[in-house]
């Protein structure tokens, strides 16, 4: 936890983790349980956005909770030019929620870069087909990789997992970057 403690300098300067600037409320709540209602989550997020000095960035990636809650609505409200990369599991049940999010984003004319299918365990064209039906780019499938859990906290090990390799492929496809 100490390693990710941001510096204070006319604002909060995010710590660099493996070349990436990183900021999370966890830097301030640590190992403690932090029970927050939706409105509190919104306020905390706005606070972090207003005091963090990101400086020049290629991309600002915001890891979001599933579904359409206060945070999702706030991000749409506050972040100009936001683009969504939506992640679904192979479960048709999970996709129901994803589909509702996609519908909302399209209604609000928010850009959706595409959908990624994560934790794939068996062959099934279901998500791919559904995404195609919605007219949204499908960026691929990431197989369920049990090695990920063991690699948590170790960046080099994590980058060697099948999960990371597949993800690198997808990311380069999303943003037309060389692998």
């Amino acid at each position, binding site marked *: 936890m100490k390693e990710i403690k941001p510096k*204070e*300098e*006319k*604002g*909060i300067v995010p710590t660099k983790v493996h070349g990436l600037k990183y900021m999370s*409320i966890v830097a*301030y*709540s*640590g190992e*403690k*349980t*932090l*029970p*927050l*209602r939706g409105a*509190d*989550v919104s*306020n*905390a997020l706005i*606070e*972090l956005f*207003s*005091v963090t*000095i990101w400086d020049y960035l290629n991309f600002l990636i915001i890891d979001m909770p599933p579904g359409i809650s206060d945070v999702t609505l706030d991000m749409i409200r506050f972040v100009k030019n936001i683009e969504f990369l939506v992640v679904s599991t192979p479960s048709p049940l999970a996709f129901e929620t994803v589909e509702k999010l996609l519908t909302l984003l399209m209604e609000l004319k928010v850009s959706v870069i595409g959908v990624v299918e994560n934790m794939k365990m068996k062959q099934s064209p279901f998500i791919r087909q559904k995404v195609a039906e919605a007219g949204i780019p499908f960026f691929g499938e990431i197989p369920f990789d049990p090695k990920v859990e063991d690699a948590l906290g170790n960046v080099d090990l994590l980058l060697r997992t099948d999960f990371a390799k597949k993800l690198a492929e997808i990311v380069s496809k999303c943003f037309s970057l060389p692998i």
Partner: protein
Amino acid sequence: MHEWALAEAIISSTTQIAQKEGLKEVREVKIKVGELQQVELDILEFALSELKTAKFGTAQFIIEVVKAELKCRVCGHKWFFSKNKLDADSSEAIHFVPETIHAYIKCPKCGSPDFEVIEGRGIWIESIKGVK
């Protein structure tokens, strides 16, 4: 210090409002600061004087601290936030992200972390005076 970020936000919001209202010069800005944030007023004042633009001329910044009042959602108990009961780390966390208070403070009556901050969170511009 993140007082600088707050000062920057105050200057830019005031400038926007002044523009919208057609003020040629800003004479006075009243700012309210919630106690929960534990903003260092000296630094905030200094940052404001450093960051202000020509539009502010000799404008006065009046800063008032608002006590932070908390109310338990479970038992209804009301109490005031007191920084003295916190260690330095928790106090710093609340300074940066006030919502982390829910990790460090519980209702003194029933022990619930489900309380609301009725007043004394954030920082806001109460009024702006100027010449058209």
